[in-house]
């Protein structure tokens, strides 16, 4: 089965991960900009990081036949430095012109401070002005519900195209308001601290599959790119068809990311040579 990993921090992972992902059917990954584990001090550090994910990383992925796309952003954890944020934002348009950059992400909230909210608004504003997609991080653990509510409040005060915005890391207590407001949502599957493969399938069964993306994130922390494949196995094990799995794990990323014409992988439909529908 062909799989798209829509949120993947490749620079934190090994070549062996690429190789194993390719062997498991992954045809494309999309890499948002994220936190380095420490707060960066200089705009140039971000610029080089954006060059790494938009210029170098696609060449590394290509060795395994995987298409690599990316996003640019100042991480919410670094939004407490508004001067730095503003300086980095000035460079976004030059990256929007790169052939594999899909938009702005992951912006969002961490502790939902005033500076974070202003940074989120600035990120979304520049994305909308340049016709880009947006990937929004919502806080972890205890701050999840409050932070997601604040994200929705910030977006509600802006003139945005909701179908071009993906609110990520939703869980059972935050999915409904995001979907009801017309945004795409993402389940991030972590071994411990975010959603699990089984819970993700529970939510797919409860809310349906429209405007939902599933990803592993997979960064330098405790994470595993193959939680995505675990989720596919769980989905199939519960009796959902191969085509239904393709709709969620390949075609939905095509539908969302494909709103940016640089993402040119098309949704696929499995049919036998006779043209009859596939039953399993």
């Amino acid at each position, binding site marked *: 089965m062909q799989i798209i990993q829509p949120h993947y921090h490749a620079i934190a992972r090994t070549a062996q991960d690429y190789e194993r992902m390719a062997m498991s059917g992954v045809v494309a990954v999309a890499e948002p900009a994220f936190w380095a584990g420490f707060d960066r001090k200089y705009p140039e550090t971000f610029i080089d990081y954006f060059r790494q994910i938009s210029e170098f990383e696609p060449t590394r992925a290509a060795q395994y036949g995987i298409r690599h796309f990316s996003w640019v952003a100042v991480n919410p954890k670094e939004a407490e430095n508004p001067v730095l944020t503003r300086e980095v934002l000035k460079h976004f348009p030059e990256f929007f012109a790169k052939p594999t950059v899909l938009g702005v992400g992951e912006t969002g909230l961490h502790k939902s401070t005033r500076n974070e909210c202003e940074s989120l608004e600035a990120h979304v504003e520049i994305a909308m002005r340049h016709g880009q997609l947006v990937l929004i991080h919502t806080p972890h*653990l205890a701050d999840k519900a409050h932070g997601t509510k604040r994200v929705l409040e910030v977006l509600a005060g802006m003139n945005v195209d909701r179908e071009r915005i993906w609110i990520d890391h939703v869980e059972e207590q935050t999915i409904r308001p995001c979907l009801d407001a017309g945004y795409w949502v993402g389940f991030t599957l972590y*071994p*411990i*601290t975010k959603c*699990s493969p*089984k*819970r993700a399938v*529970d939510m797919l*069964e*409860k809310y349906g599959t429209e405007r939902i993306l599933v990803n592993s994130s997979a960064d330098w922390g405790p994470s595993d790119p193959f939680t995505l494949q675990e989720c596919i196995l769980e989905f199939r094990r519960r009796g959902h068809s191969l085509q239904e799995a393709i709709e969620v794990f390949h075609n939905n990323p095509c539908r969302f990311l494909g709103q940016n014409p640089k993402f040119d992988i098309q949704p696929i439909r499995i049919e036998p040579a006779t043209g009859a529908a596939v039953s399993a």
Partner: protein
Amino acid sequence: MLTPSQVVETYFLESRHQLLEIAAYLDRYDAAVARAGDRNGQAATDEKRLAVIRRALEIVAEQKPSQERTVALLELFATV
């Protein structure tokens, strides 16, 4: 060995994760029963295992158990 505070801190997220999985398991069961009801179906014909899970959760939540919770659970699970 770990201090009481270290035990709480070290295993909090892992325990949170495990409890969420159990909560999801029970929610999954309720959703399946509701779907079966829509099709004039019924709950699982044998809910004994589910009853054991619910009893296990009570044992886990005991503040001052008469024996180690792990031992009590293993003995309980041996009944099904």
